[in-house]
């Protein structure tokens, strides 16, 4: 390897007398002269740099020792403070152990290893014409030898076999990976006629008089985690969660066909956003607005959960409710439309 100086041809650098034939562009002046570092010229500086490198490695060693000591003597314990202390001491030990090695190696390279830049030649990426010709010849020879051009049926057979073989993996995969594949279950929730509305997460039923104006109840269906739902309650909860409030009759506007879906000003809406499915849960009791914290779709609970801001398009589905013999709030039926985000066959 040589430095580049000899490779770059130098011309007059453009300051020559007028009248001389000038090139279109300036010429590359070549590598600037090497300027020695302090450590190259002063043995004392070099010794100092050596000591610094050793010191940095020593810091790393101390960091490792500190880490092990902290591990042995400062257990993470059971309190927030003890866990924090353990985490801090271990982390600082690891930091010193690693950073010390890195800083030492780099300081070493920068001060004590040669800082003379060297140049290496590049060659065009393409292969030489001879190599290309030889490559083509090899491929031609091979193709001719295999007879794939002459015996067309071979080509068809090999392609067909290769294309079909992956089905052995794909068929069972696609068959099994989606579970039962019945997307129609997306339409149904646990709500049904007479199903009690209960508090989330305790599952206790709610009396109509408990729901005062201005309060908000996060609701799950009765028996969510019992019986046949025990092992898939989470999917059912993901569809069935409801938010219930009572509004002053003066504030409540109801569509004609939904007049009997509320009970004395108590309305219940799906808590799952019609945008992409976040729980819409930020209820402002003064404005009756319901805000989604994920994308800020805002629904007016007093007006059929109409969208008043943000990316959602449809109102939240309403759950028709009533009161049973014991005064507890119950559903009149399931939701009358699929809850949550829109999908292709939603209206089918």
């Amino acid at each position, binding site marked *: 390897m040589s430095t580049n100086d000899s490779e770059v041809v130098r011309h007059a650098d453009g300051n020559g007398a007028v009248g001389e034939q000038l090139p279109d562009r300036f010429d590359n002046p070549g590598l600037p002269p090497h300027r020695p*570092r*302090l*450590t190259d010229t002063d043995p004392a500086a070099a010794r100092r740099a050596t000591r610094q490198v050793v010191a940095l490695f020593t810091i790393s060693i101390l960091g490792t020792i500190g880490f092990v000591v902290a591990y042995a003597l400062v257990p993470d314990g059971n*309190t*927030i*403070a003890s*866990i*924090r202390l353990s*985490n*801090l001491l271990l*982390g600082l030990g690891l930091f010193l152990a690693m950073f010390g090695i*890195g800083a030492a190696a*780099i300081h070493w390279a*920068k*001060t004590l290893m040669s*800082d003379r830049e060297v140049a290496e030649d590049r060659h065009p990426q393409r292969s030489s014409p001879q190599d290309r010709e030889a490559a083509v010849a090899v491929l031609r020879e091979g193709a001719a030898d295999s007879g794939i051009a002459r015996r067309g049926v071979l080509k068809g057979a090999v392609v067909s076999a290769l294309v079909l073989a992956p089905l052995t993996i794909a068929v069972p995969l696609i068959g099994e990976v989606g579970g039962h594949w019945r997307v129609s279950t997306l339409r149904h929730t646990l709500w049904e006629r007479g199903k009690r509305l209960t*508090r*989330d*997460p305790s599952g206790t039923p*709610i*009396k109509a*008089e*408990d*729901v*005062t104006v*201005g*309060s*908000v*109840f*996060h609701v799950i269906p009765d028996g969510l985690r019992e019986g046949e739902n025990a092992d898939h309650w989470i999917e059912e909860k993901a569809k069935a969660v409801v938010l219930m*409030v009572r509004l002053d009759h003066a504030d409540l506007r109801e569509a004609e066909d939904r007049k009997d879906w509320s009970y004395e000003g108590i309305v219940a809406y799906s808590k799952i956003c019609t945008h992409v499915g976040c*729980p819409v*849960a*930020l*209820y*402002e*009791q*003064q*404005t009756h*607005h319901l*805000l989604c*914290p994920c994308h*800020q779709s*805002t629904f007016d609970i007093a007006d059929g959960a109409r969208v008043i*801001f943000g990316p959602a398009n449809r109102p939240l589905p309403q759950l028709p409710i009533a009161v049973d013999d014991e005064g507890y709030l119950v559903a009149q039926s399931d939701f009358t439309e699929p809850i949550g985000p829109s999908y292709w066959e939603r209206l089918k």
Partner: protein
Amino acid sequence: MKAIADRRHHRMAPVVLLVMALLITGAVYAALTPTSAGATVATQTDIDTGGALFQANCATCHGTGARGGDVGPSLIGVGAAAVDFQVSTGRMPMQASGPQAAAKPPVLDAEQTRQLAAYVASLAPGPSIPTADQVDPAKGDPATGMALFRTNCAMCHGATGKGGALTEGKSAPSLGDATPTQIYEAMATGPASMPVFNDANLTPEEKRDVIALLDGQKAGSPGGADLGGVGPVSEGLWAWVVGMGLLIGCAVWIGAKSS
């Protein structure tokens, strides 16, 4: 005594002493701190003084007799808890109109607040100021508190109660500076945009569980600085500023020529 003298030099001795000092300080503090206003029974004098304070500080907006005005709502039936919350957090009397009343240093002192609350409570029954026992974090169960907080509170106040945005410039405040009494009162009365959590929704014990959870969070984060406790946005900012900042700084050092 000899046993104690022998253990003076034990390596745990400073820790034990520190814990004892903290416990004694705590006990003295608890003994000296006046008990919650709810514990004392309001006298007619309190109600009369409170009425005068109301006339001077509140009636402009809330109307004479607290029946409500053009600007402020009626306060009949809001209870002593609502008054104590609004006045002790400095939200009322309100200074400037905005999306919502802002917390600020309280204008009325504790005694005046108590009298004002007694006056408003005398107009009609409403949620009363909780007793010290009702808001004692030590008596609550943080696990129940967390389950309730997650379902009922975190969507607005954030997972660690650092606050969050509502619509049109309104916001749910940080709970870091709120006292247990104020937290209880806020749940019971539903100030501003906040819904009411009546005793049928969250029982007094459940409210205390929530207070216990929030009290426990004051111990900070086990992982180090909490970076504001607002989630991945601040984490991303710190990753760029501290992480990429330090690493690019080191890269510049590596690439620079040594002198």
